[in-house]
């Protein structure tokens, strides 16, 4: 909700609003992200979502690829305990995050470029808040992260 208080995103950051890749899940977090839209909550248009059946199926290589290709951050909107597929879904997603962060580090990229949080099907405000905070964090990272200078 707080983004709308500020100037339009593109005005604030020009065309350089951080691009954020979000992995969501078809049944749980993607509906939550939809709901943020239905409520007209604002966040940066740099945010783009790919929806999967379950966040346990994310390959760390996708995350590395995304960051190398130009996404400044990747956000995993995980199911948490609601996942109907895997009871240990959250644990698996955490392992993927840990592995991907290791790979990021190995590539000289800040591990903070990857974030994960549980987003449920009604977590609209929560998602918007995460996106705003993550956009800000990634913008701040541009000045501190050498890798940011690549683009």
């Amino acid at each position, binding site marked *: *909700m*707080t983004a*709308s*208080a500020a100037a339009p995103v593109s005005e604030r950051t020009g065309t350089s609003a951080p691009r954020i890749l979000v992995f969501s899940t078809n049944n749980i977090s993607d509906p939550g992200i939809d709901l943020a839209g239905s409520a*007209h909550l604002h966040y940066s248009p740099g945010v783009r979502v790919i929806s999967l059946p379950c966040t346990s199926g994310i390959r760390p290589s996708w995350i590395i690829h995304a960051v190398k290709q130009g996404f400044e951050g990747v956000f995993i909107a995980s199911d948490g305990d609601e996942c109907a597929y895997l009871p240990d879904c959250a644990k698996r997603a955490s392992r993927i995050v840990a592995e991907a962060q290791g790979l990021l580090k190995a590539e000289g990229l800040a591990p903070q470029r990857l974030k994960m949080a549980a987003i449920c099907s009604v977590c609209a405000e929560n998602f918007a808040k995460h996106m705003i905070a993550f956009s800000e964090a990634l913008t701040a990272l541009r000045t501190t992260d050498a890798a940011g200078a690549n683009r």
Partner: protein
Amino acid sequence: MNAPNTAPNRDLREIIREEPLMRSRILEVLSDGPHTVPEIAEALGRPAHEAMYWVMGLRRYGWIREVKEVTPEGYFRYQAVEKETRP
């Protein structure tokens, strides 16, 4: 003119249907900055629980929103949404 009815137990339908009526008055109250529900109620001369219905209705439909911090007394303050982004 009779005084407006401020009976404590007006039916909630009576109160709720006045939300469109109160919209401009509440936005006027908020024109000098954010206020809490009791403050808005006082400015309107109406009971706080009635103001609560109106404030929450206006919030729901995008006219006003809360300010993040809570007052020391435990109240949120509400501010008008900029004109361009209103419904």
